[in-house]
């Protein structure tokens, strides 16, 4: 009998929401793995080229955390399941945790797992306890599956950099929405991030439809740690990078990257306040630009700002936990185009393009809408289906430019479904004809 109960502060709920938004970029389903001391949320994309994991440390992230594994499994037992991210996001909504929103602000969130043989239904029960004595209870179905995690061999990733996440956040909006790949490269005391599209456009006219190619150059001095082989081009997906950086910025923490060479996985890793986030992304193998791998430390440029010595153990500890989190397994020596990943249970169905679309529509998205006052000058969207009708809300304070009359037209209703007073027809007209 597995038992899992934990409770969250409103702040933790908000952080959970941010993490879910970020994971949605990877997959439609979120995998949960509960262990004695921590809860891991992870998402693996359809192509299995991107994997996101958020390790929530029991005592630090949660108000209270209590997990009792099935007796047969012993102390190392764990509980794994998958839940659609849509369901979780509808529970952990964005602005729900804003204390300024008096009535709906929540006080506490309690989650418990209902997975007992004597109960008919297995559910994850989430209770939002609000200020006004209101308790909202959500019962989510889950699928009990084995969760797979991406492996990343940090020992062999001899290139790394570390930078404040806010520095990255400043420029990710420059990358156009239509570009696919992001290349970064260290050269001449500078790191250049370039977003580009590989589509080869032949038709002369089509050239103009090519998206912008954007390059952002940062000084090596802006990095807190930079130890990378010069002129090594690492290419990942722009979309993933944007989602990760946007999330990292909400935690306001140091952003670390570990990588070896093109065609091998890369890992971004950061964390604060009991939330450890790591992303393992496949990098694109590119024969043109990659120089032959050189032995470590021969052509490496080391810029490392002085760090307080007492910080080092913390970093070490974090690395250890990260190591613990992913099972140790050396990657195959031959560079693969696919990284060694276990099979995920039921995979999501979102294609990348759908993901982008949903993200744009999502008002709670982490992506800052580039709303400017300039907006009012844009041509009015006349296709938004505005219809005339009466505003039944009698809310005279706010002028509403458009509203929808959702009532069914009375006339059709009377034909389709006669009211309770009307008599139902008893016979078909065609049947009557034969009677006389």
């Amino acid at each position, binding site marked *: 009998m597995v038992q899992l109960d934990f409770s969250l502060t409103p702040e933790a709920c908000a952080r959970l929401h941010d993490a879910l938004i970020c994971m949605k970029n990877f997959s439609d389903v979120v995998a949960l793995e509960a262990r004695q001391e921590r809860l891991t949320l992870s998402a693996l994309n359809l192509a299995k080229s991107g994997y996101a994991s958020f390790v929530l440390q029991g005592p630090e992230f949660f108000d209270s955390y209590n997990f009792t594994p099935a007796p047969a499994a012993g102390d190392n037992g764990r509980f794994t399941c998958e839940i659609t991210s849509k369901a979780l996001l509808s529970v952990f909504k964005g602005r729900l945790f804003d204390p300024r929103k008096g009535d709906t602000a929540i006080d506490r969130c309690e989650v418990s797992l209902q997975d007992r043989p004597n109960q008919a239904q297995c559910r994850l029960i989430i209770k939002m306890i609000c200020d006004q004595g209101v308790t909202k209870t959500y019962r989510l179905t889950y699928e009990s599956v084995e969760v797979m995690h991406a492996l990343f061999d940090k020992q062999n990733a001899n290139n790394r950099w570390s930078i*404040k996440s*806010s*520095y990255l956040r*400043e*420029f990710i*909006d*420059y990358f*156009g929405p239509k570009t696919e790949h992001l290349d970064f490269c260290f050269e001449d005391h500078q790191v250049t991030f370039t977003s580009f599209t590989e589509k080869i456009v032949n038709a*002369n*006219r089509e*050239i*103009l*439809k*090519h*998206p*912008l*190619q*954007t*390059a*952002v*150059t*940062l*000084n090596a*001095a*802006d990095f807190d740690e930079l130890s990378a082989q010069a002129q090594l081009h690492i290419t990942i997906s722009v979309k993933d990078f944007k989602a990760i950086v946007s999330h990292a910025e909400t935690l*306001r*923490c140091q952003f670390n990257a570990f990588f070896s060479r093109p065609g091998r996985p890369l890992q971004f890793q950061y964390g*604060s*306040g009991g939330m450890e986030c790591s992303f393992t992304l496949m990098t694109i193998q590119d024969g043109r630009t990659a120089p032959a791998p050189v032995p470590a430390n021969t052509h490496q440029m080391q810029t490392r*700002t002085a*760090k*307080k010595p*007492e*910080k080092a153990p913390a970093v070490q500890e974090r690395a250890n936990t990260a190591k613990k989190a992913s099972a140790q397994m050396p990657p195959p020596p031959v560079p693969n185009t696919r990284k060694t990943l276990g099979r995920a249970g039921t995979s999501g169905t979102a294609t990348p393009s759908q993901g982008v679309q949903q993200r744009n529509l999502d008002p709670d998205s982490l992506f800052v809408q*580039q709303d400017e006052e*300039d907006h*009012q*000058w*844009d*041509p*009015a969207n*006349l296709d938004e289906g*505005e*219809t*005339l009708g009466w505003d039944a809300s009698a809310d005279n304070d706010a002028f509403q*430019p*458009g509203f929808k009359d959702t009532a069914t037209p009375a006339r059709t209703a009377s034909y389709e479904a006669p009211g309770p007073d009307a008599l139902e027809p008893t016979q078909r007209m065609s049947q009557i004809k034969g009677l006389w």
Partner: protein
Amino acid sequence: MRFKASIQNINTFNKFTASIASLGAVAWVRLDENEIRFTIIPEQGTQVWAVLAKDTIFEQYTIQSANNDVINLEVPVVQLQRALKSALNATSANIRLTKKDSLPVLCLTINTVSYRTGVDAFGASSARQDPDAMDDRASSVDFNSSSRERETIVTQDIPVRVLSQSNVDGIHEPRCREPDVHIQLPPLIQLKSISDRFTKLALASKSGTSGNSNSTPRLELSANMHGCLRLSIRTDAMNISTLWTGLQNPDLDPAQVEGGEEGIRHHASTRMRELGSADGKSEEGWATVRIDGRDWGKVMSVGRLSGRVIACFCDDHALILYVFLSNNEDSDDPSVLTVS
């Protein structure tokens, strides 16, 4: 072929491209020693013929080409605007024509310098979480002042197509008869919100009856030489109109009109001035054009430039809008609208 310039007025350039981006996807840009012309000729709708003096947006302007130092380009407006948008906070921005992978691009190089202390949006909160970080920053302020500045360089490559002179020889600004009425338009935000409202109303009433939403409603815009402008919409069910009075009818410059003083005396607008009244109640003396509601909404987006807009009405034929950038009287940006 060389073109290189630094952009001195990024905000204006950005707003300008934003306002023409709604009217067409691709602009013909003609660069020469003195001015930059943007021309948009969509298959349907409003044409834009804009002229910007080079000093309005550029400085340190260098241009060279075999064709009398004239360069003709086809530029995707949306990409250009997106690139300019990323330059809004720049300390400096340069644009040059170059080739990358044997494809011509307009390369926009944007330098942004930010200061560590200023940029740390999370300065206070991170300091709370992590006292070490604050110590780090404090020491860098005290002892290592050179590292405080952070310089970021962003380059945006806009794909372009170079046009040869023979390609553009056939493109001419449309000629139009002398206008019957010319008038300075009221603040465009008023005009835009009212006309958008009208268009929506007409669309709604139309879809209520026939469900044919393909054809857009026609707005009727009329003006007289006594400072009156009337915007109206007529459907089977309704007839609404808005009237502005007390607007300016600028005087014509004899030097610009064919025939000088004599030409003005016989000018259509002089005859129109004799008709109608300043309260707009008289039915005489109006020049009227019917314009596509959606198209008009797109044209109105030029209002973000907050320029002075003169509308020239050729009764039942065409409407031409001249937009003058307010900061510089000489540099005019005539957006020419020809809808009948």
